[in-house]
């Protein structure tokens, strides 16, 4: 077993770390205060090719593989969760689903500009009555000549407010439900019938767009059906697994950063005549967080390697997301506690990290759903089928 990163991945990490420090950090608190998406960051990332980090070079991507994508998310996750959310929705579900199931024509027309960062992607699945129960969606797509007419709406769509391309899941056969009745459609957001209705007011990741979308007689040409009619869920599930792994990587970055903040403060702040680092309660907190971060790091990059090797990884990806989000929450909570009053102040970036981190246990499939996925996989190996 060789646990070292390839030279190109080491170089990639270094470049992204420099970029994150110089370009992302200065905006992190501002975008939270102003509740805006850092378009300038997305543009710069696009110019460097990072918005296509894992896609093959033939499609305009960087060809750095899933490991490269994990590195991108980890390094950005160290400094700004809003940025990883924007990037993750674009690469991990928006563009990824086109990469996994698009035909050559669709990849040329859509994947290449997305990989080059010339356009931004999103994924439209969630609806008011279909959160964890994604199969309960109601947006309808009806065939009309050589087009499909979409009617309905979506909620909580990351990047929804400014994406150029959104892959929308709609019901094409209500009788069949999730198995055979749902189709994925590539929608261009400047088409007639597509509307952004509102933006959510969130506790954290306020530098992201979480939009409510409305489709009213939205005409989608037949060529924009992604994959086969009725097999939308198959495409979606595949890209979801990838997204979970890289969310774990982003959480790793956040947890690592929290640990570094905590160590720095504990080594500096003096109370009772000595630095906090001399207190065992502090040492225990640090040691616990550090151990979890290392365990998470091993898990994330091992699974990234499995993806690049073409091995199945559904259960492990779910574990990355589950464990990653919880480790990140514990890490930032520890950092907050060690910083005392300073950690609670909005003049200091820690409470921002705290609010931002909380979403990871909820979106991209709540941790309850992750546990169901993990348990289902485990029991399926013994022939027991679990229903959620």
């Amino acid at each position, binding site marked *: 077993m060789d646990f070292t990163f390839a030279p190109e991945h080491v170089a990639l990490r270094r470049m992204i770390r420099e970029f994150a420090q110089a370009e992302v950090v200065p905006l992190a608190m501002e975008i939270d205060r102003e509740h805006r998406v850092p378009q300038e960051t997305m543009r710069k990332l696009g110019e460097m090719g990072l918005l296509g980090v894992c896609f093959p070079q033939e499609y305009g991507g960087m060809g750095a593989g899933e490991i490269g994508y994990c590195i991108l998310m980890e390094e950005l996750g160290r400094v700004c969760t809003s940025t990883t959310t924007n990037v993750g929705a674009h690469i991990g579900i928006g563009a990824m689903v086109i990469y996994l199931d698009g035909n050559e024509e669709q990849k040329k027309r859509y994947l290449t500009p997305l990989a080059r960062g010339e356009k931004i992607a999103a994924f439209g699945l969630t609806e008011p009555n279909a959160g964890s*129960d994604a199969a309960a969606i109601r947006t309808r797509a009806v065939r009309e000549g050589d087009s499909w007419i979409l009617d309905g709406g979506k909620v909580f769509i990351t990047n929804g407010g400014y994406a150029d391309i959104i892959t929308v899941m709609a019901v094409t056969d209500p009788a069949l439900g999730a198995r055979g009745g749902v189709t994925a459609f590539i929608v261009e957001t400047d088409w007639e019938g597509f509307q952004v209705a509102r933006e959510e007011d969130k506790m954290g990741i306020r530098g992201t767009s979480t939009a409510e979308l409305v489709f009213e007689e939205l005409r989608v040409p037949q060529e924009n059906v992604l994959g086969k009619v009725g097999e939308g869920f198959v495409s979606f599930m595949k890209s979801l697994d990838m997204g979970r792994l890289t969310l774990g990587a982003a959480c790793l970055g956040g947890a690592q950063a929290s640990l570094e903040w905590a160590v720095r403060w504990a080594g500096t702040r003096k109370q009772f005549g000595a630095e906090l680092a001399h*207190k065992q309660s502090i040492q225990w907190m640090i040691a616990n967080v550090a151990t979890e971060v290392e365990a998470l790091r091993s898990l994330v990059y091992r699974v990234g390697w499995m993806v690049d090797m073409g091995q199945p990884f559904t259960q492990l990806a779910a574990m990355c997301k589950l464990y990653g989000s919880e480790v990140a929450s514990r890490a930032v909570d520890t950092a907050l*506690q060690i910083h005392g009053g300073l950690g*609670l102040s909005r003049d200091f970036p820690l409470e921002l990290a705290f609010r931002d981190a909380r979403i990871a246990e909820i979106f991209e499939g709540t941790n309850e759903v992750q546990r169901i996925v993990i348990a289902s996989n485990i029991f399926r190996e013994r022939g027991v089928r679990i*229903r959620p």
Partner: protein
Amino acid sequence: MDFALNEEQRMFLTMFGDFATKEVAPQAEEADHQEDLYEDVLRKAAEQGFLGATLPDAYDGAELDHVSYVLLLETLARESASVAVALAAHVSLVAMSILEHGSDEQKETWLPAMSAGEVIGALALTEPDAGSDSAALQTRATPDGDEVVLDGVKTWVTNGEIAGLFLIVAQGPDGADAFLVPRDTPGLIVGYREPTLGLRSVAFNTLYLEKCRVAQTARLGGAGEGFVVAQPAWDRFAVAMAATGLGLAAASVDLAAQFAAERVQFGVPIAQKQAIQQYMAEAFVQVEGLRYPVYRAAWLIDQGKDVDVPASAAKHLGAGIARGVTNRMLQVMGGYGYMEDYPMARKYRDARMLGVVGGSTEMHAHRIACEVFAGQDIEIAP
């Protein structure tokens, strides 16, 4: 042991609930977004006698026993933790300190005005280098004839923005001294209001003392007895914070239960899912487990007993439970728990503040550890 509330307490509880629902609830979300300080709510609370909650009738107080007072804080905290914290800082930290240690003149001067809500109280103890180590005071109180000159900086002064009276603890020649200083005293400057993660409708200010002259008679308690005044105040406040945590946690359980009963996924309300039931059961158990330490600490205060360790125990437990329960209940509400349009996100943020406001969990743990080893003839260092 009689675990029942007496008739009067039950009546108060209803009254408190009505007030919270009518006066606090409608404003809570907007106040949090705008970081408003609930001044009109505090005025109305004064009309109800809440601002002189535990003060005797002689000073226009409501003469509530401490258990009832704690029930008041819990009930208010269900709707807005900020109101509870602002009230507790006023009553537990300042008003009751004057009641316990003030001269007749000091009591006459300040307590009726505080009961009426005309003067809001704020304790100034914490400093940039004296957080957990609150004894490491650098603010100086230098005697000069029949005056004392105060110099220094205080941080995290709860209610600073709206306070008319500051209880300031400074290092005098004989040890720590406590002084009652009105807002308009020259040399006292109310500074920056800290923007915070939670409790956004309470003011936490920095206070500057620049050659601030006060009369010797402004001292509360004896010379060098600043901590004789401040420590019990701090203990009372710890109990109050535990009660605030209790209200927060209990309310979040109810919110989540309502959500879980209505939210249908996979064909049934999520309340039918065993994992959700586990979460709700655990939360319920924790909330119940918090009640006894909080109410007992309040009862001990009513008995005139020392409440140092029980207060720390209640606060230690309360902060942890408020944090854990609001976190779990937010999870039950999923994406909706994360949106600021729903009250859960605010409860989550408010609860997190309690890990530090009212004394950090680690400091309370230290005091409790000292108690555990008390019978063993060993001195536990911080």
